[in-house]
């Protein structure tokens, strides 16, 4: 593998500035890597990408190099390629949200974050795979086939943003954008040994993000280092007048916080371990790596205490009520009238609009989506609203209060990101509830709107698979994530003698398969 692919985005920016590489060379290297390892789902490759825009990305790279020659750079990351989760609207590129119902849909507009990427000069390599409409924790619910974990091709890369995480973990792209509603950035980050951040709710524009649960969704960075996430977060974040729920106040200085943290000095930082997130029932290797990371923080000067957030035991149920309710309404627009596929009902001579709607939605939505739409429809129906959705909104208040109380005592809260390491493909497909348990630790942050980061904490000894360490901060306190995250990252790298991903097994090269949804060059 071309060594340049291992570099972080920050390092690549330096190399570009020093004239030691060009954006075209870099982008081509990524495209070559994608062709080598991504393959169609059938081809046995990673299948992180649903669509690759080689021509477009190279043209954008070319333009970047030209700008650089003229000294007219658009941003610090000008020329560094990036992959975008297929849930974000991109003009000229399909946006399927991992669903059949949007097969081939090419939006006539760009999401705000995509516009910001373009205005910053980052070539967009393509769109990454995901659980259908972001509903899932393994990317197995993609209508276009699963993505495989670069650490073990028989295992899941996490979800819903498994594609973005796998792309970055497999060195197909130095950067990716993901979205997180209940952990869809952080949990894949944990099981693939990469970094993922869910910003404060409202910190990054949702305009152009196909909504799953509007009051929970956020766009965030997926990278290999904490500094890279800070750079990307600063680039795409900030107020957007097109998003009524976006925060007007400027973000705190994230990159600066990451650089400060990288010194590894944690003096005076109060760290709270969430009692309810960990312990019995959690994979021993996960807990072991977690505790070791805590020890490193203590050694670096942090004050670690245990904090109880008793409402967190209800977080899963609350989430799996609020989210389906909002999603059931959000997905009503997919009715075969204005975009997406149109399916005719079988054996009906002159079908009505209603009949076409019903047939299309049955054919176009997968099982998990159908389950959640029905649960959501149920919980919102008259007679049930107060008991379910209404009640869930109240429990949400309790969870928020737990966070508020905790943050009076500590600066950041921590937990393992996920109860287990990456499980095998197919292992949890038959029991939805089992799948939902993957989100235990990540969900509370979405409910309260607070930011969170997951960074690699090591490998679990029982299976040699990555473990994630989660840091949570109060709303608008995203800088704390980067300070503590960067510190821990530095301390761990020292302990390991290098980045964790160096330990990842070599990914076999695949024969590029010309599947309809596969890699195009």
């Amino acid at each position: 593998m071309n060594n340049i692919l291992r570099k972080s985005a920050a390092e690549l920016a330096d190399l570009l500035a020093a004239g030691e590489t060009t954006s075209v060379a870099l982008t081509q290297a990524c495209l070559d890597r994608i062709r080598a390892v991504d393959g169609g789902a059938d081809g046995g490759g990673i299948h992180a990408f649903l669509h690759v825009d080689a021509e477009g990305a190279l043209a954008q790279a070319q333009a970047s190099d030209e700008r650089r020659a003229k000294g007219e750079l658009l941003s610090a990351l000008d020329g560094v390629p990036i992959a975008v989760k297929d849930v974000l609207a991109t003009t000229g590129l399909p946006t399927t949200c991992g669903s059949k119902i949007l097969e081939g849909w090419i939006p006539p507009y760009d999401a705000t974050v995509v516009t910001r990427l373009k205005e910053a000069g980052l070539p967009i390599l393509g769109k990454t795979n995901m659980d259908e409409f972001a509903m899932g924790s393994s990317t197995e619910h993609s209508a276009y086939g699963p993505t495989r974990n670069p650490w073990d091709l028989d295992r899941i890369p996490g979800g819903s943003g498994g594609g973005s995480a796998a792309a970055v973990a497999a060195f197909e792209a130095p950067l990716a954008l993901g979205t997180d509603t209940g952990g869809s950035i952080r949990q894949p980050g944990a099981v693939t040994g990469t970094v993922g951040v869910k910003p404060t709710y409202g910190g990054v524009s949702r305009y152009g993000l196909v909504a799953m649960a509007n009051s929970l969704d956020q766009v965030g960075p997926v990278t290999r280092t904490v500094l890279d996430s800070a750079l990307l977060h600063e680039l795409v974040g900030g107020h957007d007048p097109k998003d009524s729920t976006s925060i007007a106040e400027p973000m705190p200085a994230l990159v600066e916080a990451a650089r400060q943290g990288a010194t590894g000095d944690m003096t005076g930082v109060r760290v709270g371990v969430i009692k309810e997130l960990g312990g019995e029932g959690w994979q021993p290797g996960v807990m072991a790596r977690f505790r070791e990371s805590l020890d490193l923080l203590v050694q670096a000067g942090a004050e670690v205490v245990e904090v109880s957030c008793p409402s967190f035991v209800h977080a899963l149920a609350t989430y799996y009520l609020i989210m389906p309710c909002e999603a059931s309404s959000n997905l009503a627009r997919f009715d075969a009238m204005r975009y997406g596929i149109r399916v005719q009902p079988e054996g009906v001579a002159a079908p009505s609009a209603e009949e076409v709607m019903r047939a299309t939605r049955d054919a176009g939505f997968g099982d998990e989506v159908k389950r959640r739409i029905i649960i959501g429809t149920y919980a919102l129906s008259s007679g049930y609203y107060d008991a379910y959705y209404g009640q869930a909104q109240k429990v949400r208040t309790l969870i928020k209060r737990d966070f508020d109380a905790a943050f009076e005592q500590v600066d950041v809260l921590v937990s393992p990101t996920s109860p287990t390491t990456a499980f095998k493909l197919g292992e949890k497909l038959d029991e939805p509830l089992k799948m939902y348990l993957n989100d235990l630790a990540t969900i509370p942050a979405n409910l309260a709107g607070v930011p969170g980061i997951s960074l690699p904490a090591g490998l679990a000894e029982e299976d040699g698979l990555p473990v994630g360490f989660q840091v949570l901060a109060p709303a608008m306190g995203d800088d704390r994530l980067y300070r503590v995250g960067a510190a821990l990252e530095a301390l761990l790298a020292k302990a390991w003698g290098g980045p964790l991903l160096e330990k990842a097994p070599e990914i076999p090269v695949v024969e590029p398969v010309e599947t309809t949804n596969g890699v195009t060059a």
Partner: protein
Amino acid sequence: MPEISRDEVAHLADLARIDLSDAELDHLAPQLTVILESVASIRGVAGDDVPPTSHPLPLTNVFREDVVVPSLTAEEALSGAPAAEDQRFMVPRILGDEQ
């Protein structure tokens, strides 16, 4: 114990305009019951004195100026249409009246 019967699932699928086959109904109903039982665990957790949080942010009064912003062209608007005629979206015959 909350339970979703097969009939109820059929009714909900109807409300959600999804044409579930018999096999799907058989398959989904028990799964949904399990999920519902699990989420029903929050009943009674929060008392009447706890206000609901519909929004993590305490924002209010976000407005925009009443000023025209360029729209999509008709071509762009219709670009995804499964069927179009006369610069309009062509949809199959509609039964029943508007609301």
